[in-house]
């Protein structure tokens, strides 16, 4: 039983079948997320009510089978075996039922209290695939419900059937028949373990794992059902294999083969496909992955997203900035009226001005970039990127799925680091974690966009197009650095050969535009903005204090700048910029605003909303195109922000790897900037 007497129901299914959509549709906002105890695997639980009864739903990680090859699949297997769920909803993809039934049939061997949820019925209908759920139900012996969770269809019926199996277990669930000689050994072995299991786990399932020599599963059984001793059964299984004349591996092939043959039989009876063979999907895939077209298509799409972001963000940025800065005067007057004029400097010129800058510079590009990017994600474009780039990552002895974590890093490096959980090999996962900060996150895009616009677009001509192209170039550079750093790591600290790699390429799906916009605005834009704003105001206050506290007539700011200036010059920048990068440690978003405040110190602070005023201010402080280039490079490659570092500490559980994650990009960035600065001195 779950919390407060709620019925505990597990949700299981292959990856990419819309399991989370079903979970979200059923539980709505009544969810809590976290990690599975002792694992770096995300967990989600939620509650829902049906017919006056409370259910607690547990969303298990996507799994292809219960044979467990990854931490996710282990969690799923252990929860289904020992979690105490009173029913299991197995979510299947109607367009790919045969593969999905493999997992469903395996779960049926654990418990008869199963409801098969055949999801994506709408997509199947579009592709002219008809699934006869009644025939399937007759053959499987457990309830089968067709749903389209994205449209909310069929969910009510799903809960009704869950209610049914919780009340009474189906009496004749389908049992996969194995070859006769194997069956008799399974039968004999399951009788002998049944006594010891005492109903806590299905005996037939355990006997099969014993015959397969599935040590990981048997260890889990031993651990969860102690003081049970399964060693005698191991010997019995070995004898049984000798009788059969089969190796453990041959037993496993026979078992999986029999399950798939059963799945074939079920699909032959219940799936009627008249799928048009026009090959349109294939043509799109061949274009996106073609020898000559694959990489250019990817870059073009990325450049298009940047173009729309730069082009679209200009005007709203200006409007927001005008509106927010026009509030400064009333704010100051209000403070005067309250008799707190002394607060005007730190609060208005320090905290508020930085906050206004961050909001007006960050919000518009984020509100455009995030939805566009989420749209690409929703369509199913990102796995194709991983597919295209796998060759490069393999040559660097890393995993192709690292490309997916790089894509997540565009949004937020902390999210990218958490996303590295999709990589099974611990070595390759560490490589992906350590190099994720080399990908510019959304906090750094505004700086890149602004400096490109101020210093390079005019010279290049072509406005937003050339800006987008230059930004794409920087992304290619950061990808190159990621590959270089990955290669370096796997040649030194994380030596090893690339491990095996399977990646599913799900079909392109029609994006849910409305939901994408809502999700990206709330989950990403507002979240990142909130974090930046929470840091920007205090940082603005600190920098105002640094600029205005002047023991001995020289401000703290000036002292700090002077201290850092030699190193800054070596890197093609100056002390003010390094100070800004240091103070921007909690959030990259505030680096440029802080630098501007630093330059303007002492003077009556110029309002810095206008692009022209900003360009003038920077030029007055000795900026050239070379300075701008070095700042952009250092923004791409320097220490990760504090949130990302904390996340790395949590994910790796090691202070040493965290320190390396800080040093690696910093060293790369310093080397690169010093090189560019030296080149500038020679050329200029």
């Amino acid at each position: 039983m779950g919390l407060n007497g709620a019925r505990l129901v597990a949700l299981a299914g292959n990856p990419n079948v819309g399991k989370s959509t079903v979970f979200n549709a059923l539980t709505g906002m009544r969810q809590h997320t976290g990690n599975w105890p002792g694992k770096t695997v995300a967990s989600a639980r939620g509650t829902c009510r049906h017919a006056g009864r409370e259910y607690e739903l547990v969303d298990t990680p996507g799994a292809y089978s219960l044979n467990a090859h990854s931490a996710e699949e282990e969690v799923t297997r252990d929860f289904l075996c020992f979690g105490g769920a009173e029913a299991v909803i197995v979510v299947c993809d109607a367009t790919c039922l045969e593969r999905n039934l493999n997992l469903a049939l395996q779960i049926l061997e654990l418990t008869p209290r199963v409801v098969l949820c055949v999801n994506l019925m709408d997509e199947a209908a579009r592709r002219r695939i008809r699934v006869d759920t009644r025939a399937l139900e007759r053959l499987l012996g457990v309830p089968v419900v067709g749903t389209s969770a994205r449209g909310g269809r069929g969910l009510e019926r799903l809960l009704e059937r869950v209610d049914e199996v919780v009340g009474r277990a189906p009496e004749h669930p389908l049992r996969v028949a194995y070859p006769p000689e194997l069956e008799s050994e399974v039968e004999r072995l399951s009788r002998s373990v049944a006594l010891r299991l005492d109903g806590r786990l299905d005996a037939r399932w355990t006997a099969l794992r014993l015959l397969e020599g599935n040590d990981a599963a048997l260890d889990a059984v031993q651990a969860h059902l102690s003081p049970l001793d399964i060693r005698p059964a191991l010997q019995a299984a070995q004898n049984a294999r000798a009788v059969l004349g089969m190796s453990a591996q041959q037993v496993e092939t026979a078992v999986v083969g029999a399950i798939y043959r059963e799945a074939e039989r079920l699909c032959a009876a219940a799936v009627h496909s008249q799928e048009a063979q026009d090959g349109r999907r294939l043509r799109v895939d061949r274009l996106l992955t073609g020898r000559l077209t694959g990489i250019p298509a990817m870059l073009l799409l990325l450049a298009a997203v940047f173009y729309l972001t730069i082009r679209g963000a200009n005007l709203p940025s200006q409007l927001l900035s005008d509106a927010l800065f026009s509030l400064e005067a009333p704010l100051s007057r209000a403070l005067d009226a309250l008799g707190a004029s002394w607060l005007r400097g730190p609060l208005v010129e320090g905290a508020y001005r930085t906050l206004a800058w961050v909001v007006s510079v960050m919000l518009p590009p984020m509100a455009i970039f995030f939805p566009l990017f989420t749209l690409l994600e929703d369509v199913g474009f990102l796995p194709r990127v991983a597919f295209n780039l796998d060759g490069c990552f393999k040559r660097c002895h890393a995993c192709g799925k690292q490309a997916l974590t790089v894509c997540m890093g565009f949004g937020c490096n902390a999210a990218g680091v958490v996303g590295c959980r999709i990589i099974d090999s611990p070595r390759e996962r560490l490589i992906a974690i350590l190099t994720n900060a080399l990908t510019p996150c959304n906090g750094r895009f505004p700086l890149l966009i602004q400096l490109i616009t101020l210093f390079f677009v005019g010279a290049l001509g072509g406005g937003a197009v050339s800006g987008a192209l230059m930004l794409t170039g920087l992304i290619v550079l950061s990808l190159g650095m990621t590959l270089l750093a990955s290669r370096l790591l796997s040649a030194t600290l994380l030596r090893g050969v690339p491990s095996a790699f399977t990646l599913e390429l799900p079909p392109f799906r029609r994006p849910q535009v409305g939901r994408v916009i809502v999700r990206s605005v709330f989950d990403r834009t507002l979240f990142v903005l909130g974090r930046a704003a929470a840091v920007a105001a205090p940082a603005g206050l600190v920098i105002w204090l640094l600029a205005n506290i002047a023991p001995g007539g020289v401000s703290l700011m000036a002292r700090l700048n002077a201290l850092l200036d030699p190193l800054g010059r070596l890197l093609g920048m100056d002390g003010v910029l390094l100070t800004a990068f240091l103070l921007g440690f909690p959030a990259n978003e505030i680096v440029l605003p802080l630098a501007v405040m630093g330059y303007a110190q002492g003077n009556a602070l110029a309002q810095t909303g206008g692009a022209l005023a900003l360009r003038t201010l920077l030029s007055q402080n000795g900026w050239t195109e070379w300075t701008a280039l070095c700042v952009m490079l250092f923004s791409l490659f320097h220490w990760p922000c504090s949130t990302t570092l904390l996340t790395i500490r949590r994910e790796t559980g090691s202070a040493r790897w965290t320190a390396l994650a800080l040093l690696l990009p910093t060293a790369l960035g310093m080397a690169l900037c010093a090189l560019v600065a030296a080149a500038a001195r020679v050329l200029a």
Partner: protein
Amino acid sequence: MNALCDMPTGKSARVVGVPGDGAMNRRLLDVGFTPGAAVTCLFQAPGGDPRAYLVRGAVIALRREDARAVQVEPALREVVAWA
């Protein structure tokens, strides 16, 4: 009998088996490369590796050295039920 990695794009075959005893062999069985399964090589990455295979209605990308573990034989008829 051939290895899956030697099958040209656009061609179909039938799986004979996945001999060998590693985690990857188990994974290949789980995603559907079991004896008798029809498999089609659909397309390849720009560098020629990995390749995408249609098996049991899903598209799975495999690197060349992983696809080598799958033994296939020519299909009796071409399987192109995919769009």
